[in-house]
C-alpha cells in the first residue's frame, strides 16, 4: 500500500517530487562538471603527451633514421630519468618496419621484436583520454625526419592520478548533492507541511468516514490565508449540501417504501376485507347456533383461519415498515412475507405469479434483509405494473458461486431507455417519473452488487447480483 505514491500524504508527495527534481538537477549538473573536468584533464594529458613525444621525436629522429639502438635507448633512458612526476611509464621506439629499436624497459620490448603488441591499443596523440577509467593509456606517434616517416614511438602514460581525481570529484559531487538534497528535502518537508496544513485538513475531512465528506469545524479553519479560508469554507458548504442531499435521498427512499405499501394498499385492503365477510358470518353463526357445539367449533375454526391470515398480513406490513432500520440478515421468511404482500396485487390484476426461492440460506446470511426486501418489492411492483392484466410476473432467487441472484421477470413491453438509465446508471434524473428504479440502483450499489437487464422472447428480466461476502460479513 505504501508503494502507491497516490496514497502518500500530499506534503510527502510534494517534498518527494522536489527531491526527485533536485536529484535530477544534481545529476545533470554533476555530469556537466565531470564532463568539463574530463575535457580539461584530456587537454592537459594531450598537451603533456604531445610535448613528451614531440621532444623525444626531435631527439630520436636521427638515431632512428640510422637505427642506432644504443643512442635511442640512451635517449629514452635519460628522458625517463629526467621526467618528473612519473607520468611516463614506458616508451618504445620502432623503425619504419615496426621492429623495436629500443625501449625504456628492454625486457618488455626486446630489440628487434615486433612493436605491434604495443601499438594495437595505442591511440594517436589527439585522442588521448583518461575518461575510460584505465589507469594507463598508450599513445602512438610517428617519428619523422625531414618529412619522412622513419619509425614510430609508443608511450604508456600513468593517468592513475587523473582517474582518481575524477573519481574523487564524482564522489564529492554525489555526496554533496545527496547531502544538499537531503537537507533541502527535510527543510522543504517542514515548510511544505506548514504551508499545506489546510490542504491536509481538507484532505483528511474529505476522506473521513469512508469517503463521505465531513465539514471542517470552524475553529480549526486557519484565518491567515484568505484564499485557503475561502476554500475551506466553500468545502464546508459543499459538504453540508452533500449531507442535505443524502438526507433528502434518505427521506425519499423512506417515502418510497411507503409508496410501495401505498401501491399495495388496495390489494391489501381486499386481502383484509375479503376474510372479514366470512369472519362476520362465522360470528353470526356462533351467535345463532350457540347451542350447537359442532357448528360453533366449525365457525371458530373458520374464525381462527381468517384471523391467522389477517395476522400474517399485518405482520408482513409491519415487517416491511420496520426492516429498513433493522440490521437483520436475510432469510427465506423475508421472501414469504414479500409473497404475502405482493400476491394479492397479482391476484387483483389477474396475473400469474411464478415464485421460485432457492435454498440459499448460507448466502442469505451474508446479506442484510431490509435493502433486499425493498429491492425485490420495488422490482416486483414495477413488473406487475408493466405486465398486462392476465399476464405473468415472476421472482427467481438462486445462488451462483458466492453471489446471490434475484431475477424479476414480466411479460410487459420492457423497460424504456429512460427507465433503464434510472436503473442501470448514475445519470442525472430527468424531472418527473418515480424514484423507485433509482432507489433500487442505489440500494444495490450500497450492497456492492450490480444489475443486469435482459429482454428476450417478450419477457423482461432484471437480475440483481449481490456479492455474498462483501455485502455483509458472513
Amino acid at each position, binding site marked *: 500500500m505504501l508503494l502507491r505514491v497516490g496514497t502518500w500524504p500530499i506534503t510527502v508527495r510534494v517534498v518527494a517530487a522536489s527531491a526527485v527534481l533536485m536529484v535530477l538537477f544534481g545529476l545533470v549538473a554533476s555530469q556537466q562538471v565531470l564532463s568539463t573536468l574530463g575535457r580539461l584533464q584530456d587537454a592537459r594529458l594531450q598537451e603533456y603527451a604531445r610535448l613528451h613525444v614531440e621532444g623525444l621525436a626531435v631527439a630520436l629522429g636521427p638515431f632512428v633514421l640510422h637505427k642506432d*639502438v*644504443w643512442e635511442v*635507448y640512451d635517449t629514452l*633512458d635519460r628522458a625517463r630519468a629526467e621526467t618528473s612526476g612519473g607520468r611516463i611509464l614506458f616508451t618504445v621506439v620502432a623503425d619504419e618496419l615496426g621492429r623495436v629499436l629500443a625501449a625504456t*624497459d*628492454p625486457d618488455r620490448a626486446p*630489440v628487434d621484436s615486433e612493436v605491434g603488441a604495443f601499438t594495437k591499443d595505442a591511440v594517436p596523440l589527439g585522442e588521448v583520454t583518461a575518461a575510460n577509467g584505465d589507469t594507463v593509456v598508450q599513445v602512438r606517434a610517428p617519428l619523422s625526419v625531414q618529412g619522412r616517416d622513419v619509425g614510430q614511438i609508443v608511450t604508456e602514460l600513468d593517468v592513475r592520478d587523473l582517474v582518481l581525481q575524477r573519481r574523487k570529484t564524482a564522489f564529492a559531487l554525489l555526496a554533496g548533492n545527496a547531502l544538499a538534497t537531503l537537507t533541502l528535502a527535510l527543510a522543504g518537508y517542514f515548510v511544505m507541511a506548514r504551508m499545506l496544513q489546510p490542504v491536509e485538513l481538507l484532505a483528511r475531512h474529505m476522506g473521513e468516514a469512508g469517503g463521505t465528506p465531513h465539514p471542517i469545524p470552524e475553529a480549526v479553519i486557519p484565518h491567515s490565508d484568505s484564499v485557503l479560508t475561502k476554500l475551506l469554507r466553500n468545502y464546508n458548504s459543499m459538504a453540508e449540501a452533500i449531507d442535505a442531499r443524502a438526507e433528502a435521498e434518505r427521506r425519499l427512499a423512506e417515502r418510497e417504501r411507503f409508496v410501495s405499501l401505498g401501491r399495495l394498499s388496495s390489494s391489501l385492503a381486499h386481502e383484509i376485507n375479503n376474510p372479514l365477510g366470512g369472519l362476520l358470518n362465522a360470528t353470526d353463526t356462533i351467535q345463532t347456533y350457540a347451542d350447537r357445539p359442532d357448528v360453533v367449533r366449525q365457525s371458530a375454526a373458520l374464525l381462527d383461519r381468517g384471523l391467522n391470515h389477517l395476522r400474517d398480513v399485518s405482520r408482513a406490513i409491519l415487517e416491511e415498515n420496520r426492516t429498513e432500520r433493522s440490521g437483520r440478515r436475510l432469510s427465506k421468511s423475508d421472501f414469504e412475507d414479500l409473497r404475502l404482500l405482493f400476491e394479492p396485487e397479482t391476484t387483483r390484476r389477474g396475473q400469474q405469479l411464478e415464485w421460485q426461492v432457492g435454498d440459499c440460506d448460507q448466502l442469505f446470511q451474508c446479506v442484510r434483509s431490509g435493502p433486499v426486501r425493498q429491492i425485490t418489492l420495488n422490482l416486483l411492483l414495477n413488473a406487475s405494473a408493466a405486465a398486462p392484466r392476465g399476464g405473468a410476473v415472476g421472482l427467481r432467487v438462486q445462488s451462483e458461486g458466492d453471489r446471490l441472484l434475484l431475477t424479476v421477470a414480466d411479460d410487459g413491453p420492457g423497460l424504456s431507455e429512460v427507465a433503464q438509465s434510472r436503473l442501470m446508471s448514475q445519470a442525472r434524473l430527468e424531472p418527473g417519473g418515480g424514484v423507485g428504479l433509482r432507489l433500487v440502483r442505489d440500494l444495490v450499489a450500497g450492497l456492492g452488487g450490480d444489475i443486469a437487464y435482459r429482454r428476450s422472447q417478450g419477457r423482461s428480466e432484471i437480475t440483481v447480483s449481490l456479492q455474498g461476502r462483501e455485502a455483509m460479513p458472513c
Partner: protein
Amino acid sequence: MRRRGFLAGASVFAATGFPDVAQAAGRFRLGLTPVFLDNDADVIHHLRTAFSQAMGEPVDLIQRRTYQEITAAILDGSVDAAWICGYPFLQHRDSLALLGVPVWQGRPLYQSYLIVRADDEAKGLQDLRRHVHAFSDPDSNSGYLVTASDLSRVGETPDSFFSRSVFTYGHRNVVRAVASGLTRSGSVDGYVWETLASVEPSLTSRTKVLAKSEWLGFPPFAARADKAQDPSILNFSAALRGLAASPAGREALRLLYLDGVQEGDASLFDGIAARMAELEVR
C-alpha cells in the same frame, strides 16, 4: 666521492671544457675519450691541475666521442697527446709514440670481460649466438677486438654470430645495456667493470662476468711519433710519469683507481697485436 668522481657524464666536461677556438698557441692539448673515461669535473679538474702544475703551462683536456676521432685528432695535430686504447695505438703504431702506460693494481695490464645479466644462464660465448651484443667502440681492444678475435677463432664474425651488434661508445654504457636487458651480452673493459663494481655496485650487480681475456696492455698515452721529441711532449711525458708526485695528480689517480703511470714498452701490447693478427688473417 670517488664514485661521483669516476662517473657522471661527458656533458659536465663539455659544459666546463675548452672549445678548440679558444686554444691559444702554447696551451698543451690532451685528448680523452669517454669510451674509456666517463669523466667528470673532479677528474678533469685534478688532471688539468696536476698536468698544468707539472708542466708549468696551461693544459686543455679535449674529449671526443670515439677512439677514431681522438686518434685522428692526434694524427692531424688537433691534440698534442691523448689517452687512447692499445688497439688504435697498434693500428697507427708507425705514426704514434708511446708516452706512458697507467698502472692498475700494480701492473700496466688489464683484461676484457664478456658480461651478461646476473640471471643469465649462458655458460660461454657460444650460448650467446643469435642474440644482441653490446660493444663499446669498434677501435676498442677490450670493448671489441677481444670478442671479435675470439669469434674469429671459431670462424665467426660479430655480424654472423650475433643477431645484432650495438656500439655504445662507453664501457659503462656496455654495462648499462646488459644490465637493462637491451642487449643480452657485452664486451667491456675489465678495469672499468671492476672500478664500477666499487663505485656503482647497483649497476654491476645486475651483471656477471661470463669470461675474462688474458692480461693485455693497459690503454696508453700516446703522441704523434714525429713530435715525440718536442719539448712540450717531453715535458708532458715527464709530468705523466710524475703524476703521483703531486697532490693534484695523486687525487686524480685516486679518483681513477690507478696507481700511477709508467714509461711502458710497446711489447706490453703484443697480446693485442696477436689478436689483431688473428682478426686480419681471417
